[in-house]
């Protein structure tokens, strides 16, 4: 009689553990998807910010037409890459975003040469917005990697691994830099030509 009760209690405890493991997997999967979408949100925010930036700078920087046009062109190609993105073309999206970052960096460097623009216009505020946007994209990717790592680890731990198949849990891919050129430290050419 007592043995029967103990056995029943054990069964209940094990069932409880499995149910909470299953729920945890579902929750982590949802968080991972959410974090992935968050990256897109931040990228789009960056695309939307750039026209404001160009307008603020256009008046004072007539002699820098090339730089301005480069930024606009990079932004448009990034928007196109994002719009037609599939998981297979993720590399193209990353490349387009990288090109946009490079164009923006050159643009901000050129702005430094126009002190009155910095002082009077709201370019100071836009600079802060821009660096904040770059940070947000970076943090969104970081948060996605952290969440995806947690999801991958939990899937393979015991006893969650027992219900992983049932929960439809598949390892999530981490966001990585695929283009080796991005990893290289940018060289600054200071020779006077």
């Amino acid at each position, binding site marked *: 009689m007592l043995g029967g009760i103990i056995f029943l209690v054990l069964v209940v405890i094990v069932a409880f553990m499995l149910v909470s493991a299953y729920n945890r997997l579902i929750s982590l999967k949802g968080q991972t998807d959410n974090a992935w979408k968050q990256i897109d949100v931040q990228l789009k925010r960056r695309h939307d910010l750039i026209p404001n930036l160009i307008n603020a700078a256009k008046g004072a920087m007539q002699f820098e037409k090339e730089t301005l046009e480069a930024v606009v062109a990079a932004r448009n190609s990034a928007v196109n890459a994002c719009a037609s993105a599939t998981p297979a073309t993720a590399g193209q999206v990353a490349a387009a975003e990288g090109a946009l970052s490079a164009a923006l960096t050159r643009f901000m460097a050129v702005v430094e040469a126009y002190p009155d623009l910095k002082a009077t216009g709201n370019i100071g505020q836009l600079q802060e917005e821009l660096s904040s946007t770059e940070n947000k994209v970076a*943090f969104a990717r970081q948060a996605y990697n952290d969440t995806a790592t947690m999801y991958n680890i939990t899937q393979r731990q015991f006893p969650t691994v027992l219900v992983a198949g049932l929960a439809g849990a598949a390892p999530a891919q981490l966001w990585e830099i695929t283009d080796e050129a991005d990893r290289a430290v940018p060289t600054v050419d200071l020779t006077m030509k």
Partner: protein
Amino acid sequence: MATFFDLQEKNRKKTRLIVVCFVLFFIWLGAGLDLALYYWSGGSIRMVSYSYNYRHRYMSSPPATTPVKKEKHFHPIFTLIVGLAGVGLAWWSMSNAAGTVLSSMLAKPADRNRSPEEHTLVNVVEEMCIASSMRPPKVWIIPDPDPNAMAVGLNEGDYHIAVTDGLLRTLNRDEIQGVIAHELAHLKNQDTRLMTALTVLVGIAALIAEFVGRSGFCGIDAKGGDREDNRIGSLIFILWAVSIVIAPFVTRLMTLMVSREREYLADASAAQFTRNPEALAHALEKISAAVAPTALVKPASAHLCIVSPAAADLSGDAETSWFSTHPPIALRIHRLMTIGRTMQTKAAVAQTCS
């Protein structure tokens, strides 16, 4: 060498252990008396006090000539009273709005258009919310020239972060980022809820001690029953009485221990969010270098701040004071720098091996 993930795991286990001890001690406070009475209930006990004659309900007073051996009964009366008082007080204190704390410090909401610093602050809060996968809390500014920051709020919809004027002026962008990450970590790890619950329990322990003290208890008149049981009952009673006396002191010490551990946890979480622990370490150095204590923060809210607002804790002493809500800043900086070195070593190893 520990990564911030390892440190967080260790920290959470330690907190769980302390809280379990806390709860057990508390149960003992309620159940101890019931246990003692249980052992005594074999005979007839009469507790004598000046303020009222306490007659325990399951004892009678049989004539002294015939010692009666009765059935022992366990009535968890005191455990229930303590439990109900605890739940009641906890519910009452949790429903107190965070707004009262903030208004007592003359805080005003941050407006991104008011000044470049507030603009930066609002942006930094949004960035850290993305990094920590949290919804943005309300941001407040405290008009105090001394640098400090705090986080309040018990429920997910009701989180607030407050920052002093002095902090915005003293720290650069990366350091503000570290401080905000630390505060968000407190909210994410629900430290405010934990500390509120513990503070409530401390209050109840003090109340019980007060109540027992005031009842004017002065003696036990024991007759009959099994002598062995009576002795056990008396022993348990003495232990319980001693626990009651030291309860307020012990529970306060435990709460402070938990508070210090959660500070380390928040530091490690901030390192995870920013991936820049050196910035937070520099921020702590700069804040501790400001000698003046934060005047507007009341002692009751001290444990919510990033650096203890009390003057005594700013001395930079490396000794862990048992009565401090925060660990010594030198130790916190040391731990953060260790995390930083671990990150660099791992990155270097990954670089050379790839």
